């Protein structure tokens, strides 16, 4: 778990080097911590691979990516929960450039912004 504006988001996780992050709201931190403890290292690697397979065509896997799990929740490899109401609101994930060669994808916020722009 990394806090807001953590360096890890730009440089990759200091423990494992992972570059895929899931955005968790403050009120859900406890639940998310519990869930990550339940996952094995192999599970985490598989989930990361699956996420890139699902959304990866638009994203460079070498760059840090932050995903909002409110639309697609991956409980374990092969177990998915989809929030259709959120998914229907959006079209494509928007990629934010943080620094030279560093990007963040924030699904919920980007889609809110996209839709505000159009309205």
């Amino acid at each position, binding site marked *: 778990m990394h806090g807001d504006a953590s360096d890890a988001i730009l440089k990759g996780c200091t423990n494992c080097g992972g570059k895929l992050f899931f955005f968790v709201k403050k009120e859900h931190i406890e639940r998310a911590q519990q869930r990550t403890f339940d996952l094995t290292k192999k599970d985490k690697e598989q989930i990361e691979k*699956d996420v890139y*397979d*699902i*959304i990866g065509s638009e994203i460079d896997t070498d760059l840090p990516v932050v995903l909002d799990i409110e639309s*697609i929740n991956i409980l374990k*490899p*092969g*177990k*998915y*929960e*989809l*929030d*259709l*109401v959120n*998914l*229907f609101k959006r*079209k*494509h994930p928007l990629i934010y450039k943080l620094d030279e060669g560093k990007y963040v994808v924030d699904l919920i916020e980007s889609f809110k912004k996209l839709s505000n722009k*159009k*309205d």
Partner: protein
Amino acid sequence: MIKAFKGFFRRFFNKLFKKKKQVKLGLYGPPNGGKTTLANKICVDWLGEEMGAVSNIAHETREIQVKEQILIKSGNKQIGFNLVDTPGIATKIDYEDFVKAGMKEKEAKTRAKEATKGVIDAIKWLDDMDTVIVVLDSTKDPYSQVNITIIGNLEARKIPVLVVANKIDMKKSDLKKVQAAFPQYKVIGISAKYGKNIEAFYEALFDLLG
């Protein structure tokens, strides 16, 4: 909101000036409702060939499939469209359901991942549709979150809709319940597998597209 109006005006002007653009007719609905079975029926009836594979295990269609330039006729009238078959939309996809249906774990996990991507793709394509047929299984409860969300979003985008209550050949089928759930739409009961009431479906399609 502007997008919904744009779509509405695009469809209105296309109709007004009879623009020769091919209409995109999408098949949407929950998994295993019979979208691909209906797509196959339409394609066999009017093109003489099938569109895609069907299966009893949910999420058989995991990629968007398009069959172009289908022309259907009724008396002197004819209408053309591109048929778009979409993956089933679900709120929960669990590989263990596929394992229970006889799949190996690895294959089931891949299917779950592809099905999830399929849901996202189906939703992305919705804004490109001119008309949508929502295919529901008439043996199941029509008041599901998936059905309500799909139909609510079509309504918000002002996309014309025809609801098909499929599998009326089955004992548990309850057409009236589906009709009661969506009173604002025309609901046609069919059996895509056996072609039951398919003529009424084509008539309704003519009314919708014509």
